């Protein structure tokens, strides 16, 4: 639910804005590349579509050092507890982008083996559709997340 970003008090409103602005600058992703989407995620971090413009080219291996988890790929039943464990290890504030059709809803694999949508395991902020979503789509998703944070709509 949207919470108005302006508080009645002038000082805390400005502080809120500053905090949200800071949260969006250089969010470090935790590397959670699973399948084909991971390759497109790597391509987004590479030279042509450069994530390092946003300070995000460092994919932290340790979830404790990351703020953003991009679930890139299909999450199988065996992987779901691992996903939850990695998410739990991240420190607040943290966000989740579900990248690709398989992560968002199970994709074309509506069967016994996959979790039908990663939002059954972790809370998701942005869904990026595509199979796989190209770097431009993923970028759009990341920038939408940043705008949502700055506007106070995605609250942590």
């Amino acid at each position, binding site marked *: 639910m949207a919470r108005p970003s302006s508080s009645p008090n002038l000082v805390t409103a400005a502080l809120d804005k500053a905090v949200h602005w800071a949260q969006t600058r250089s969010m470090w992703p935790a590397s959670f590349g699973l399948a*084909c989407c*991971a390759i497109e995620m*790597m391509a987004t971090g590479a030279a042509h579509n450069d994530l390092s413009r946003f300070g995000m080219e460092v994919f932290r291996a340790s979830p404790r050092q990351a703020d953003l988890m991009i679930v890139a790929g299909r999450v*199988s039943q065996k992987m779901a507890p*691992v996903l939850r464990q990695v998410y739990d290890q991240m420190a607040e504030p943290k966000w989740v982008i579900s990248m690709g059709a398989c992560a968002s809803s199970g994709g074309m694999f509506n069967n016994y083996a*996959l979790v039908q949508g990663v939002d059954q395991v972790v809370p998701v902020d942005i869904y990026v559709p595509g199979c*796989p979503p190209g770097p431009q789509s993923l970028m759009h998703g990341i920038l939408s997340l940043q705008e949502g944070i700055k506007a106070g709509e995605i609250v942590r």
Partner: protein
Amino acid sequence: MSKPPDIVPGDLEAPSGAPELAANELDAAPSDRRSVHDLWLSGTEAPRELGPFTDEGAQEMLAGESPELLADQTGTLVDDDYEGSGRSHDDELQIINMGPQHPATHGVLRLHLELDGETIRRVKPIIGYLHTGMEKTAEALTFMQGSTNVTRMDYLSPLHNELGYSLAVEKLLQVEVPPRAAAIRVLMSELNRIASHLLWSATSGFDIGALSMMIYGLRERESLLEFFEKTTGLRMNHNYIRPGGVAADLPSDWREDMVSIIETVESGLADYVTLLLGNPIFIERTRGVGILTHDECLAFGVTGPVARASGVDYDVRKVFPYSGFEQYDFEIPVTTNGDVYDRFLVRFEEIRQSIRIVRQVMETIPEGDYRTEDRKVTPPPRARIDESMEALIHHFKIFTEGFKVPAGETYQAVESSRGELGMYLVSDGGPKPWRLHVRGPSFANVQSLPMMLADSLIADTVAALASADPVMGDVDR
């Protein structure tokens, strides 16, 4: 830095600065080399026997019990043989878990490493974290939809998966594709091989420590992905090669694109060779590391560049040719050392040979149809649907029920960038496969990891794993 080596096709020599392996390093004593049957069995971890508790100040107590232990601890016995036999005390074995979420396991592979200090005694790969039930899904999709499913298995060479599947279906259908379609298939699959090897060199170089390789490899790959997007509509997972031919013809200016791609890739390759192959640090990290012998490759069914680096002269394109590969002139690089360095040599040379094939396709590709005329298999062109009732009916049948494939079974293999990719297809005469089993090359390659990593160091795990190039989509399906 020494001069970058000039690798002449068919003549794979390490650069002059690289130390050759002494003959006796490869013929390790039998006790030092795991036997092919000594794989980690679950539940057989040796029970920990707690020996006498050692403590810094308690060395005198042990003098009577084990003079070697005392000599070791006081430093009077200098044992350089860290890999070995001198001081393995079983109570010091430790199990470390690597993965499934790990920056260097190339996907969701989990490894249990049993360590004695830094030396790896046993390795147990645990897979299944990407199991997608694709073989079950294949039974629910029609034959024409099958390539959308199969293409996502080995997601770094999607066109190879599609090619294998289409060839298997065509074998059961007893349908021939037109020669132009076969040539387009060869072109696309060789371009895919180049793209896959570029990505592999990017991630492997990155894992070994050459961080800029990630940017270089992916940069060169982008030019290939642009061409794929132009021709097939997607950068990855194209669904382009379908039973009966290909989905669309090549764009009219494809030859100019080929010229520019070849130029980009060749200049990039020259950069990688300079950056990696002559570099003494790289040589230290890769020479003699992750060795897999010729017989081990055969016993485990390891194919592809890993096997060719160990001396197994087997490439499906040469031995069981398909899609017209026999008319092109190319060589298969084979080396004998079987270590990580050789796998780099083999894959770089394969990129060159693929470029050679692409050039030949550019010159010899015939004009004609890009898919078979048999309207029971391939849908009619969209314009015809307005004109002809028959075309409309064929279109309808193919897209709703699907075309029926005569009952039978077949096994069709193609040479993917990782090795022999086989499709075992069983049909019961209906519009959907009865059983589709995909033999992924990485499944067998991951199985050989315990042999590759036996008695090596943890730091070598990453290099050896990177050189085996496992793609977990292939392993787990």
